[in-house]
Each structure stands twice: as structure tokens, then as C-alpha cells.
């Protein structure tokens, strides 16, 4: 039982990171129906920005977190402006291929500059190194940090989407882009803003994963990116609470498979879940079926 609870804690920590990435996927999909393959790489950039802030500039964790969110937000908006905006009216496959292109570009471009070798994150100091015990269950300070930062960001996101003007615009554009435009909403601005928010969250996830796993490399965005996408599909792509649920679910599944089964199979299980969902209920846990108009 204690072991199980310990795994749940680990799963929620990992799930938090997936959830943060999945939110970006789901928001972008909701608004322009694009699987933004480059999203995992924005997360990788977030990890590297955090790394350089903490090592080269000797900044603390929180300033580094903010800087990496900011850099990722700018990167996300830039990607959208350069690569996706000219294709607003192209086929979905064309945009998807572009997204794959952007992803390759960022991955190998980064590799060119920082070299392919993994780097290890600087150790945290002070309070961050401690761990807490309740019975035999161990919480590390990092896990508490990850979980609480994720919760704060999610609450903030919910507030932005539900209460603010731009959040309403986001929801309007994702429901019906043309109608929103006719109502005087600037669709381009809204899409940019969606990329901004999604990428900032991915940046946060990047630095969090850096302090959690300690090792980063230019291709680190690939797998978690794909898994976060699975999480988004699981919850129902385009639906924000769905991405959160999906993120935690995938995190828990992965930790459980590694803990009680064979850690080699955790990727396979995640992809098997993906295929099963796609076949059984492609619209995901919280999604609604849609039908094509003839």
C-alpha cells in the first residue's frame, strides 16, 4: 500500500509535466485544428533556457522559470507567425507536415549549437534539496515544487480562459472561427495568444523536468511531446480539463507500469492506450462525437 501511494506521488509529479505540455497541444488543436508537433521542442527549449539561466547567469529557480516561460512564449508566437500563419487556408495535412518540419528544425538546430550530448541540471540548493516523510512515503521538495507550480499555472489558465476577454475570444474562435471574425474578434491575435500561453506552459514544464530528472538533451522533447499528445487525445483533444486529466492519467500509468511491470514497456503501454482510445472513442474522455456535413 505504501509503495502504491509512493508510486501515485511519483505518477502525479510526472503527470503534472505531461499535463502542462498537453495543455499547449490541446489549446492549439482546439483553435486551429493542428497537432503542433513542434510543441515538444518548445518544451525542450524551455529546459535549455532554464539550464543556461541557472548555470551561465547564476540565476535562482524562480527567475529562471519566468525567463524560460517568456522565451518559450516568444518562440511559440514566432513559430506560429512564420510557419503556420501563411497556411491558414491550406489543407490540414499541409500544416501538419509544416509542424513536423518546424520540429526537425528546432531539434537539430539546437543540437547544432549545444551539441547532442546530454547536460545535467545544476543541483538545487537550500530548501529545495530536502525531502519530507509522511509515514514511509517520501515527498521530495522537487515533487512538491512541480505539483504546486503546475496547480498554480492551471488555476491561472482557467482564470484566463474563463474570465478574461482574450479567453472568451479564444473560446469563440475555437467554436467558430468565421463567426468570431464577424463579431469583431481578431482571429490572428487570438491564435497568437493561444500559442503564447501554450508555449509558456511548455517552457515551465521544460524547466521542471530539468530539475526533476536532472538530464536534458536536444531530442528530449520528442517522447514527452508525443506522450503529452496522447494525454490530450485521451482527455478529448481541444478540451482544457481533458488535457489535465489526460496528463495525470498518462503519468500515473507510466509510473505504475514501470513500478509493477517492466519499465521497458511503459512507452509501448502509452501508445497502446492511444490506439485503443482512437479506435474506441476518438473524441476522447470528455469529447463529443462530431459528424461531417454532406
Amino acid at each position, binding site marked *: 500500500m505504501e509503495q502504491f501511494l509512493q508510486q501515485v506521488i511519483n505518477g502525479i509529479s510526472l503527470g503534472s509535466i505531461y499535463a502542462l505540455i498537453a495543455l499547449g497541444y490541446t489549446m492549439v488543436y482546439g483553435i486551429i485544428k493542428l*497537432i503542433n508537433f513542434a510543441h515538444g521542442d518548445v518544451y525542450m527549449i524551455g529546459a535549455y533556457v532554464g539550464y543556461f539561466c541557472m548555470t551561465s547567469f547564476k540565476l535562482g529557480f524562480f527567475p529562471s522559470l519566468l525567463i524560460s516561460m517568456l522565451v518559450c512564449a516568444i518562440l511559440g508566437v514566432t513559430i506560429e507567425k*512564420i*510557419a503556420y500563419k*501563411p*497556411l491558414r487556408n*491550406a*489543407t*490540414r*495535412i*499541409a*500544416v*501538419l*507536415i*509544416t509542424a*513536423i*518540419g*518546424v*520540429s*526537425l*528544425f*528546432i*531539434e*537539430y*538546430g539546437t*543540437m*547544432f549549437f549545444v551539441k*547532442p550530448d546530454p547536460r545535467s541540471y545544476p543541483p538545487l540548493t537550500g530548501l529545495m534539496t530536502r525531502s519530507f516523510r509522511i509515514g514511509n512515503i517520501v515527498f521530495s521538495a522537487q515533487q512538491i515544487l512541480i505539483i504546486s507550480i503546475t496547480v498554480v499555472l492551471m488555476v491561472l489558465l482557467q482564470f484566463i480562459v474563463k474570465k478574461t476577454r482574450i479567453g472568451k475570444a479564444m473560446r469563440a474562435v475555437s467554436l467558430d472561427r468565421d463567426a468570431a471574425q464577424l463579431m469583431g474578434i481578431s482571429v490572428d491575435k487570438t491564435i497568437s495568444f493561444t500559442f503564447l500561453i501554450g508555449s509558456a506552459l511548455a517552457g515551465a514544464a521544460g524547466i521542471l523536468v530539468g530539475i526533476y530528472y536532472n538530464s536534458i538533451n536536444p531530442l528530449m522533447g*520528442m517522447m514527452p511531446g*508525443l506522450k503529452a*499528445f*496522447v494525454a490530450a*487525445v485521451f482527455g478529448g483533444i481541444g478540451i482544457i480539463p481533458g488535457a489535465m486529466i489526460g496528463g495525470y492519467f498518462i503519468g500515473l500509468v507510466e509510473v505504475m507500469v514501470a513500478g509493477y511491470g*517492466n519499465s*521497458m*514497456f511503459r*512507452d*509501448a503501454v502509452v*501508445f*497502446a492506450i*492511444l*490506439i485503443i482510445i*482512437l*479506435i474506441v472513442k*476518438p473524441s476522447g474522455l470528455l469529447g463529443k462525437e462530431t459528424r*461531417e456535413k*454532406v
Partner: protein
Amino acid sequence: MDKLIKNTGINKLIALIVTFVIVQVLISTNIINDYIFSTLVTICINIILAASLNLITGFTGQFSLGHAGFMSIGAYTCAIITLRYSTVWGFVGGLVAGAVFAAMVGFLVGLPTLRLKGDYLAIATLGMAEIIKILFRNVLDDLTNGAAGLRGIPQFINWAWLFLFTAGSVLLISNFINSSHGRACISIREDEIASEAMGVNSTKYKVTAFVTGAFFAGIAGAIYASYFYYLKPDYFAFKKSIDILVIVVLGGMGSISGSVIAAILLALISTYLQAFPELNMVINGALFVIIMIFRPQGIMGSKELSLSLIKKWTGQFGRKNGGAA
């Protein structure tokens, strides 16, 4: 009209024989050395892979991101069989078995997933390829030697086999496309609802295209295993599927000759950039974005090279290639 078709057939045959003989002579005189020949093998493998993926994605309009998965099945099957039976027959048997096995997996995977549309299918096939990779790495490791990979696979691929399988695959795939069944596949890409209403069983044709594509990807994998005599699961990762897709997109979705041209072009680019593999990938990535923004139809669009264009182009290519060698 009929006569014209026959003439084109004969012309094609002559062009093929001439190509074969010229390269054979260049190999015998060692103008094409081992290094150039290995590039040639890569080009041929990529041609088969791209033509087969083009059938699925370019012609039938079913976006697959898991083509490397089928390639790996062909590669491992052929490798395992030739390691046991190290004869030419073992190799041919392994190649056929690999292709058939890949096609069978294609059928099992395609049947449930091809109901999905567009990007959902892309993701499902991607997941499928990842699962296949993990199977080869962690589950079947008694057969595949896990992550360390299989070494010392007997090398049977020479120019004659290579040419036979490449030209054969391309020919069979274009024959399929130029048939009523091929047209039915294309109509699904154009408008699935209209094509069902016109009596086309879209599920059947999607699965047929998918299985056929998987079959030829299996052949490509078997050639890879037999020439490069070393296999490891990580070679067949997501990135490999993307590499194949780059060729299809650059050449033109719905153009077999486009795939052939793009396979050659990209092989030349990566040969020049061999010292900088990252740069090569960066260029591939940028190519994707640039093509989609400025020329989404790729080099050829959905057109095929006509006879006069082939003559013109082979002339130019011959000169270029001569210069490079």
C-alpha cells in the same frame, strides 16, 4: 491510343535495360566504387519506401507516420532468416517472408485504424510504429538481440538484385495506380463520401493501399538488412518515418516519378552534408516548411514524368552525375 501505350511500355523497358547495363559496366570498371554504390543502395531503398508511402499517403490520402515500422518488420524478418539460412535462397525467401509479414501486420493495423481520419490516423500509425520498435527492442530480444542489434547479416544485395527489386517495386506500384483499383484509391483521397456514393468500398481500398504499401516497405527493409548487415531497433524510429515522408512531400504527393526524383535529390544533399548530420536534418525541416508554404504540391505535384521529360531529365542527370563522380 493502344499502340501508343505499347510503345511507351517498350520505351520504358529499353530505358530500364540501358540504365541497368550502364551502371553494371560502371561497377565492373570500378568507376562506381563501394562508397558510391552504398549511396546507390540508399537511394534505391528510399525510392521503394517513398513510392510505397506515396501509394498510402499521396494517392489514397491516408496520412501514415509509421512507415518505418513496416520497413523494420521486413528488415528483421529477412535478417533473422538469412542468418539461419545463409544462401541466396535464404535471402530471397527472407525478403519475401519479410514483405508478406509486413503486409500482414499492415492488415491487422490498418483494419481498425483506417476508420480514423487525417491527423488521428497519423498519430495512430505513429503509435503503431513505436510499439513495433519496442517489440523488436524489448520483447522479441531473443530473436533480435534487443537494443544492441543484429550483426553480421550475410550480404547478398548486388546491383542485379537491387535493380530488380527497385524497378520491380516501382513498376508494380505504378501498375496498381494505373488501374481501376488505383483510381478507386485516388477517388477516396479526392472525396471519400462521393466515392462511397459511387460504389467504391472505401474501407476495402484503404486497407488494400495500406497493405500494399506495407508489403513494399517490407521489401525495402529486407534490402537494407541484407546490404548494411547491421540492424538495430532505434534506426526505425519516428525520425525514419519522417525521412520517408520528406521524400514523398518533396517529390509530390501523388507522383511516383516525383518520389524517385526526390529520393535521388535528397540522397545527393545528404551526401554533401555527411559531415554535418544535424545540419542535414535542419535543412530537411526547413524544406518541409518552405515547400508547404511556397510549393505545397512538391516538385511534380500529382503529375508523372512524360516520356519526353524523362529523356530530357535523364540527359541532364547523366551529365550531373558524371560531374560528381
